[in-house]
């Protein structure tokens, strides 16, 4: 009896059986890659704001301290987006006719908020607190990157949970002295591991098995 299938069918079937495994694996990889990509995380994506406010200019060039605008960063969960009043402290004197600043003046005249686009947007079930991180020696730069070099702010990290846990599992990798928390371009004065461990003890940072408890961030 003549063979129904050609011998090459064996190869094709083998390839397709093994191929299916690779295909599923590739699909998984693709899904994972997509999930971690800036498409999903918005990492590094500069957002268009109603006012093209430049941190590079205000922080980098003029050297204004972070806390001049982000007033509650040492007191509260939110660092605070400055009220229009803060902008107008200077801009009622300088650049008073700049068309770029018209939304600010409009807000000041009408009493309506400037609608900023949120750049660092954590899910609602995450309760991040700025004040405690600042108090424990986590620099602004550690999470927000070189703000002084960003004309438009983009998200520096992925903001995925693995990124949070990376530090909560070993904070000594990132700690800096409290006086350098607001410094941009901080360089540790020695080995980071050594400094970090010293600061961790000094600032009474809780052991990692406590920092990684679910209720540290979720309630």
């Amino acid at each position, binding site marked *: 009896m003549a063979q129904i299938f050609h011998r090459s069918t064996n190869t094709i079937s083998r390839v397709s059986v093994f191929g299916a495994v690779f295909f599923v694996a590739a699909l998984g990889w693709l899904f994972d890659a997509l999930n971690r990509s800036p498409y999903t995380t918005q990492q590094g994506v500069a957002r268009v704001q109603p006012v093209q406010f430049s941190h590079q200019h205000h922080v980098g060039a003029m050297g204004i301290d972070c806390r001049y605008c982000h007033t509650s960063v040492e007191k509260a969960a939110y660092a605070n987006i400055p009220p229009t009043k803060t902008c107008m402290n200077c801009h009622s004197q300088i650049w008073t006719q700049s068309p770029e600043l018209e939304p600010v003046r409009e807000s000041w005249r009408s009493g309506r908020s400037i609608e900023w686009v949120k750049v660092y947007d954590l899910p609602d079930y995450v309760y991040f607190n700025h004040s405690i991180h600042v108090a424990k020696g986590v620099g602004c730069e550690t999470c927000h990157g070189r703000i002084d070099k960003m004309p438009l702010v983009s998200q520096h990290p992925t903001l995925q949970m693995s990124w949070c846990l990376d530090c909560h599992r070993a904070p000594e990798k990132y700690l800096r002295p409290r006086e350098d928390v607001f410094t941009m371009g901080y360089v540790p004065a020695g080995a980071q591991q050594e400094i970090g461990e010293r600061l961790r003890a000094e*600032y009474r940072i809780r052991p990692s098995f406590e920092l990684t408890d679910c209720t540290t961030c979720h309630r």
Partner: protein
Amino acid sequence: MSESEKRAAGPSIAEARTRLGALEGREYWRSLEELLETEDFREHLHREFRVPIDSGVNRREILTLMGASIALAGLTGCTRQPTEKIFPYVTPPEELVPGVPLFYATAHVHGGYARGILAKSYEGRPIKIEGNELHPASLGGTDVFAQGFLLNMYDPDRSQTLTERGRIRPWSSFLAAVRLALEKERPARGAGLRFLTGTVTSPTLQKQIAGVLTEFPEAKWVAWEPAGRDNVYEGARLAFGEAVEPRHAFGAADVILSLEADFLGSGPAMPRAVRDFASRRRGENPNRLYVVEATPSLTGARADHRRPMSPAEIEAFARAVAVATGAIASAAPTDPFVEAVAADLKAHRGSGLVLAGESQPPPVHALAHAINQALGNSGKTVTYSEPVAGGPVNQAAALGELARDMELGRVSTLVIVDGNPVFNAPADLQFGKAMGNVGLRIHLGLYDDETSRLCHWHVAAAHPLEAWSDARAYDGTVTILQPLIAPLFGGKSSHELLAAFSNQPEKSGHDLVKEAWSGKLPGADPDLAWRRALHDGLVEGSALPAKAVRVRPDFTSEARPAAPDAGLTLLLRPDPTIWDGTYANNGWLQELAKPLTKLTWDNAALVAPATAQKLGLTTEDVVELSVGGRKVAAPVWVMPGQAENCVTVHFGYGRTRGGRVANGKGFDAYGLRTSTGLWAASGLAVDKTLRRAALATTQHQYAMEGRDPVRAVTVDAYRKDPGVVARLGEAVPGPTDTLYPKLPTGSYAWGLSIDLASCVGCNACVIACQSENNIPVVGKDQVARGRALQWIRIDRYYKGGLDDPETVHQPVTCMHCENAPCEVVCPVNATVHSAEGLNQMVYNRCVGTRYCSNNCPYKVRRFNFFLYTDYTTEILKLVRNPDVTVRSRGVMEKCSYCVQRINRARYDAERENRPIRDGEIVTACQQACPAEAIVFGNVSDPEARVSKAKAQPRDYGLLTELGTRPRTTYLASLSNPNPTLAPASRAEEKKNG
């Protein structure tokens, strides 16, 4: 045979008695259904969430849905975060830091009386009520109404505008209409003008009304509070010849006799009274409480000796005690109970206290005053002052007069200031019908309700958290109420309404209140004094001075004992959770299990077991109650401890225009209330119908099968042998007798101690928790299936016979077991242990297997079967606590020990580089508790209050024999029975039963 047929009439209660006699190995029981092991009870015991069998989905559909679910699971992770916006302030408000709550002192006015509160506000939006420690009526505690009234402010059913005959009008046209009406009234000096308010303790409002009455001398002010204090004032008038306000010092009383006074459950001094009373229940220097009452109350539940008595029996009893204590001279037959109570009162001259409830007729109040005076208690445990409220002393009489005047057409303008008389006035007055004769009817109210429907003008009222006002507490202390938020719907306060009748109609509430107090606040600097009064939540030294009064020597001649009733008596009481109907549209309070019946969403006719047996009634039978020709159909609730031949109904239900939550719930007991029988009416007829009602009760849900979870001992037994409490339980395995891995030890070990000797079962903690933790309301049908979501439940246990059992309340929350049975069965690690001992719930991981709940011996886990949280009504989003995740469908939830409060305290402490101080973390339930029964803290610190509480020999854990090592433990309840009356009723019951 159906369940209803099985339970058909009579024999079941007899059977319950038999089973009660044969109860083995335990003393406590929860309900008749438990004793009878009804199908319903067994179902709740074995299938805690009762999945509906007829779900309308067949097997194929389920398989299809499951397949699709598996295929699509995980895709939910693919969503990108939508772009969100930030709206910063233009000019930041002073003192406000986004994300940091501010607390404002104000007051909750209940029945006219102020209780001091602190309202917690996030970015200008009040989200939680706490007690004000400085305020004399609160001392830091609150009640369910203070916790719950916040939700009314965000109620989407509130009336949202000013209307004239249903058409929207501006405030200016209302003012013009008032001008016109006043000009018409002027020639007759206001003879046709009437103001109807609730009980008014506000000095500003009193001043405003007095101002209008000066201009219109013939006008009249009528006050009506359905659960008012007429009897208290009339009783004082009978005894002293003048209406005075009695003020009780429960902390100073060694022996208390309550003649149906429910001072622990309601009453103007409620949070304070509980605080004072509970401070004397913890073992050292214990007080003793005797209660005689017709229907079980929270006060009766805490009594050392309680006797159910009909109203006539209570009066006879009061008379007998008065004779035995020498307060009045008369020969009366005595019985051992009277003798024992009188002897105890006489042995504690100057530190005894007799008080009568609002529901008691004036002679009983007068007798209580006479006994107090004869025993030298006056001036010590009870003092008197001028009445705190203004307006007519006898509200019922004034309201009756108003109704008659309206009927006769003598009223041309009726102004109803924040009241609902069409719904809650006595039925015989036919208030709604009489109102038809009034030319101009104006109504100010939070809701477009039964009364506003019959009024020409309806003015949307501002909620008390939206308006300036003032009010006096039970002792006269004034609180200036400050608004937390601008009126959400542009409502007007009662002050602004009254101003419309003055010559300054446009004056704001703030100016009116401030002007009324100008020059009257203590302190040299008026501005500082005003700020201080606002900050403290009270005006220093504004309590009314004590007044010396003497009992008239001839009062006994006026007090004739009523002839004992034959037949049935109807008793009318305000509802324990929705009060007189004021809170009927409040989902939190509707779903709150009533403290003794554990009913939700309904009222019922409470009938004593013996009476039910006699009449052939069982729980849920619908009966027709008729008295004096008025009829109401009501479901029966067989109530252990109810006086025989007395049927109690609670008014406040049966709303027709109360809002979406209120309408159609329960029956309207006001239909049976007449101005001569406000609290009790004899000649009641009960006719059984063939209908049955479905009531949603939580009393046999979450049962811990066949065990005695509460422990109660007498003070004497405990003093003699403190080990007695530990011996009431089974042997507890040691800390190493476990296969569970040892968990790492954190910096703190959180634990909770609940003192059952202090707890009165008032439910304040339940609502505080609901408000703090964004717990949604599920509705009657879901409650009946055991799906209520409250994280704290208060179990009510009975001990002893059906007719007069002892009652013990036990709040149960998540125990945060060190060896938590829920954690090991979770397939997805959604419930895990923290180093500090918290049993954490991770909503995002939860897939809803409910294994954890199956394995929880305490039945404290709650499952979101549906999307219970309202995601769509915008205004309800404002009431939620931003610190707590809003849960969606399909996840388990439970008490978290208020982890958001732990974290907040931790941030504060760690920013200052110091450990968290003892007492710095106060959980929501602990804060609300008026009895200070709940203590939270770090159990690894031996100096912490919680450790000291747990170190007492009466500390015990629930079901510790299972080796769960719960972090929440209890202190056994203590009672202080009179040795001459002990042993308590159990032995007698066996004899009789």
